[in-house]
């Protein structure tokens, strides 16, 4: 796990960036470049060269580098660095300092990042509740289980949202499901590419319900800010963090569960850092602004009593396997236990869950507890897993597509018929490449692209499917 200090201080200049990320200690060995999946395919851009470009040419030159926009912050380079350079912190800080921002230029034309900035800025009641109601309807119709149960927590514009008091929480826990940007991904992807995003939310609520948890859900939840943070927009990030943290505080949630690897990283590592930064600059009396500024509001959260714990749903499930009626208890006795009938599933570690948070075992524990599934490992797994090829909807090109294609083939050659992941974006990106490969394979003759490519699912969808067969 690396707790990179991307928001650690009020980053002011290049020198500070170089020293805080230890980039000054780079011995130019080039090991990072050898391990970087982007550099491997776009040989002129390497992490090592980006550092030296900044040192010799300044911010302008560094921001013109291909890796400035194409770096995935996946952290593979850091696995090898003998000088322990925090390259991921470096790229995030560089994007923060650069005069020209890293503009989202993937084929989605920046729609998500624009929506995220609008989520930070607009003070209007959102349409999230309707989307959540849509999930209930969908679950009612798909016949895969009982009605979805969750408890809406009013936002600042609560008049639109009657709070139902149906919550039943084991013990003293108030468990909240942080949905993330799934509604937006759903809106953009369901029509054009047919990638099912809403299904992840349905499955998450279903599995939580099966464990006896009726999760709280924020009616006015905002994007966690991950993408804007990694694009260098720290102001918008702070606003989003503040709006979410205040709502979580009001909801009195003490365990926040998410099915998104990026939300998990952001909530667990980056929110506390920003609260601390603002609290200490308020303490030092450095603040000139009024009491309503985002900085002050964040600082005020430092003393928060609820101090929620942020977990990925696979961690939550793993912890509960013993105590609750979680999937997996019937494994040994279940008729589906015969290995011949099990679906072979490979797990794709999302960078934010794996290298960023160090969570490698939880998803594997969940998978192997599903009776209908046999886990296979790919050649590059755990800390060696390769990124899904796109980060923060920032940039996507042939290099990304190659990375995705290679990953799909890797899963196929491991014998997997399903490639499972634990991050909605990994699912979207891998599914996009899969659709493309299949359309080529339709008329093509390349045996590697015919027939045997795996289906892409989220791990929580697999768990929910298994519940449906019980």
């Amino acid at each position: 796990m690396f707790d990179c200090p991307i928001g650690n201080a009020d980053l002011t200049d290049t020198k500070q960036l170089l020293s805080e990320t230890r980039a000054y200690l780079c011995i130019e060995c080039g090991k990072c470049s050898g391990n970087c999946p982007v550099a491997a395919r776009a040989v002129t851009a390497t992490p090592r060269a980006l550092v030296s470009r900044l040192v010799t040419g300044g911010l302008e030159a560094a921001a013109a580098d291909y890796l400035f926009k194409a770096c995935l912050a996946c952290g593979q380079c850091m696995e090898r660095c003998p000088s322990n350079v925090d390259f991921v912190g470096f790229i995030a800080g560089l994007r923060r300092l650069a005069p020209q921002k890293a503009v989202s230029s993937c084929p989605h034309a920046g729609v998500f990042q624009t929506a995220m900035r609008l989520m930070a800025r607009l003070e209007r009641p959102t349409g999230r509740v309707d989307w959540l109601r849509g999930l209930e309807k969908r679950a009612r119709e798909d016949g895969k289980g009982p009605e979805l149960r969750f408890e809406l927590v009013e936002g600042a514009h609560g008049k639109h949202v009657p709070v139902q008091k149906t919550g039943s929480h084991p013990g003293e826990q108030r468990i909240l499901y942080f949905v993330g940007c799934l509604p937006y991904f759903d809106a953009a992807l369901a029509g054009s590419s047919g990638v099912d995003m809403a299904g992840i939310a349905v499955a998450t609520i279903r599995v939580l319900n099966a464990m006896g948890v009726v999760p709280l859900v924020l009616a006015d939840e905002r994007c966690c800010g991950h993408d804007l943070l990694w694009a260098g927009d720290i102001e918008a990030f702070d606003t989003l963090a503040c709006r979410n943290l205040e709502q979580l505080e009001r909801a009195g949630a003490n365990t926040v569960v998410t099915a998104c690897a990026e939300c998990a990283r952001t909530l667990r590592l980056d929110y506390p850092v920003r609260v601390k930064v603002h609290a200490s600059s308020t303490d030092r009396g450095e603040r000139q602004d009024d009491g309503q500024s985002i900085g002050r509001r964040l600082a005020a959260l430092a003393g928060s009593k609820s101090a929620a714990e942020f977990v990925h749903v696979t961690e939550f499930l793993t912890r509960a396997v013993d105590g609750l009626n979680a999937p997996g208890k019937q494994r040994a006795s279940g008729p589906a236990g015969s290995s011949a009938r099990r679906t072979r599933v490979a797990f794709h570690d999302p960078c934010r869950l794996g290298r960023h948070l160090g969570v490698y075992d939880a998803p594997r524990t969940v998978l192997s507890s599903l009776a209908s599934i046999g886990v296979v490992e790919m050649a590059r797994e755990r800390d060696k897993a390769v990124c899904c090829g796109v980060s923060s909807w920032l940039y996507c090109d042939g290099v990304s597509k190659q990375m995705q294609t290679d990953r799909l083939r890797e899963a196929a050659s491991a014998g997997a018929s399903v490639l499972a992941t634990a991050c909605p974006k990994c699912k979207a990106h891998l599914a996009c490449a899969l659709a493309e490969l299949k359309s080529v394979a339709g008329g093509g003759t390349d045996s590697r692209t015919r027939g045997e490519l795996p289906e892409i699912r989220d791990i929580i969808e697999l768990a929910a499917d298994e519940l449906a067969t019980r």
Partner: protein
Amino acid sequence: MKGMAVTARFEPRVVVFACNWCSYAGADNAGVNRIQYPPNSRLVRVMCSGRVHPAFVLRAFELGADGVLVSGCHIGDCHYLFGNESALKQFETTKSFARLLGIGEERVRLEWVSAAEGERFARIVEEFTETIRKAGPLAGSTAT
């Protein structure tokens, strides 16, 4: 304007995307025929309504628009044959985003305007401007 009492009246900022081959010419036709319509709109010419990705519409809102109108050739008339059909599809996504963000569906509109329909263009813009005026400023208070 020193000394004058200025009553801040909300003037909506409307962005109109118009395709080069029909709607832009339609707007031109309105001008040539001296048909009056509210001056609140900023016209952005695009080659085809199919080019107007939902991201463009959101970006307009981010940059301060209170309402966004997308216009193209009538179905069957698109210079690129089916560009406007793709515009129609994309516009569904645009509406979903507008709903989700709380911008509201009434602030986005898709209309077909041919090169000969200057009158129609003017009426649509007029009516849309009034809709947005009623809806009020999207964010904060805008008096200009």
